[in-house]
């Protein structure tokens, strides 16, 4: 009788595991999120956030020589993928649980000790996008279709928008308004203090990438169908629209000379574009064999982007390849410039994080022990 019970339990455990894997929900998957404060890199890659000291590309260790991560112990209910946001104290990070299963927690944590400072538990759904942190407020989009504004100790100031579908992209601000996109096809301009909607615009297709707001008075954003828009920050009026080949999955980046850089996903291929931000005219395009999902990185005299297939390409401002380095793994995470190093976080690669110099030479790699 006892053995039968054990067999039954084993079958059910197997079934539970199978269903979890099938749903992809108990263990939701996404690409890693990366942030740095200049001294440390914070890598959200599933169950834990890794704190990697850049000087020796090693994790901090506790008294028992165990790596300090957040949370200290893995919790099957928690998954972290958005780039952790740094609080104004420069020491704490904000990160939300991306697992669709409850709890829908948002944590403020000390990544150097692996401890939770506070948590906010009243969200309607899970967290996909990274928060925007200002001097006194945390603005964070939620899959329940709302933008949450919390003070720096985790008390809710307001919850607004209540869109029919999730807000997945990182919000941006011009100081007075918060701009956030929605799967619901809308881009919203929200008053940073009151949370009231200043304007909203239906762009006819889902928006999963963050907008970019510029000093020229425009906010730029792209849809999954490949339409890139420039909208007036005050009114939401469309200044221009340019249709690109493939869908737009990441935020465009604006250079000082007024050029927008972004990549697209066209099936399994992609194109890297340079666009005139004033007119929307395509200045240059570079077809890649693999999709471009991550936002590019603007360096002093060149622009760098990564492809899903694992290629890192640096191009001059005139569109000539400066260098290109393939790596093993998929690149979805935006590269990050820290000092003279470019940080790259692949998915399914040989390492979790690597640093390259500005000429594309690998400096070091990090993999958790």
């Amino acid at each position, binding site marked *: 009788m006892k053995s039968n019970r054990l067999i039954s339990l084993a079958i059910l455990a197997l079934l539970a595991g199978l269903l979890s894997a099938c749903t*992809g929900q108990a263990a939701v998957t996404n690409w890693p999120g990366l942030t740095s404060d200049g001294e440390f890199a914070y890598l959200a890659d599933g169950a834990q956030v890794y704190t990697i000291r850049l000087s020796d590309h090693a994790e901090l260790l506790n008294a028992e020589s165990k790596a300090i991560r957040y949370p200290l112990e893995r919790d099957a209910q928690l998954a972290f993928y958005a780039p952790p946001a740094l609080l104004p104290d420069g020491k704490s990070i904000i990160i939300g649980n991306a697992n*669709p299963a*409850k709890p829908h927690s948002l944590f403020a944590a000390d990544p150097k000790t692996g401890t939770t400072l506070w948590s906010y538990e009243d969200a*309607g759904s899970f967290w996909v996008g990274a928060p925007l942190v200002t001097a006194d407020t945390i603005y964070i989009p939620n899959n329940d279709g709302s933008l949450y504004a919390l003070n720096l100790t985790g008390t809710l100031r307001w919850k607004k928008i209540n869109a029919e*579908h999730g807000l997945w992209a990182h919000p941006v601000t011009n100081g007075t308004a918060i701009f956030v996109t929605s799967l619901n096809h809308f881009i919203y301009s929200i008053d940073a203090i009151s949370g009231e909607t200043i304007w909203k615009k239906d762009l006819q297709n889902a928006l*999963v990438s963050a907008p970019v707001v510029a000093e020229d008075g425009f906010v730029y954003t792209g849809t*999954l169908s490949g339409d890139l828009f420039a909208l007036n920050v005050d009114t939401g009026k469309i200044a221009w629209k340019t249709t690109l080949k493939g*869908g737009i999955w990441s935020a465009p980046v604006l250079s000082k000379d007024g050029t927008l850089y972004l990549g697209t996903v066209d*099936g399994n291929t992609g194109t890297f574009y340079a666009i005139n931000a004033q007119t929307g005219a395509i200045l240059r395009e570079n077809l890649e064999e693999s999709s471009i999902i991550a936002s590019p990185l603007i360096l002093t005299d060149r622009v760098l982007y990564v492809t899903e297939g694992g290629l890192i390409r640096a191009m001059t401002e005139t569109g000539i390849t400066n260098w290109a380095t393939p790596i093993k793994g998929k690149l979805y995470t935006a590269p990050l410039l820290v000092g003279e190093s470019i940080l790259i976080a692949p998915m399914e690669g040989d390492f979790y994080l690597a640093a390259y110099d500005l000429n594309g030479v690998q400096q070091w790699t990090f993999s958790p022990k």
Partner: protein
Amino acid sequence: MWDLLIVNPFTNILLLIYAFIGNFGVSIILFTIIIRLATHPLMASQIKQSAAMQDMMQSPEWLKLQEKHKGDKERLAQEQMKMYQEKGVNPFGSCLPTLIQFPIIIGLYQSITRAMSASPLQLLQLARGISSGLENITPNASLSHLIPLQSTFLWMNLGQPESITLSFLPFGIPLLAIIVGLTTYVQTKLTMPPAANPNDQTAQMSQMMGIYMPILLFYFALNFASGLAVYFITSNLVGIAQYALLGKVNWNNLFGGGPKSTAKTNASRKK
């Protein structure tokens, strides 16, 4: 390969139904019914083979064979195989249809999950998997119509775990999860075949499954997107209907105080 052969075609069928219906909850229900009906011949064959096997194992010849060769396992196996051939029973006849059905059910489950993408990576997989041919069938199957899916169904958001909040209660009632638990319990009970001997291992395991399975699915429905709970409920109800159609629903298990052993029944008949 799995994606190419199973998940992508299933997802596209599900999305096509959605493009016509415009309601993802109804699409899940229809899609589950279609798949269950398509696999009905396999299920019927499995039940038939299972019943034939059970009948044979309760026959006096079989029992006599067990008694005669109980000390010689090799000989017993040879004699059993001979009897399978004589009676025309395939010992794997009840397993094979189940094995074929299993990937289909898992594929169905995965396609529903994929359609309700919960991360940018899953949404990317969904967007890539949508066939360009769908839009030729109906303009409602364009990317802008399919992403995001209209996930509101009745009082639920199918992408979220469901619970009903009542003003006088400080907590929500997970109505859908309760229905999942109940329908799973009822389905397990109704479709459990009468055991030859209630003390044998198979009967005991079936009874335990009848307890653990509803708890497991209740847990899943409680914590995961309610779209999956809609699938569980539909699948359970269609399963019961399929058994009823084949005359194999065992009402005694539900109302008669537990499964009746066919051995007992046979014995009482003899009296």
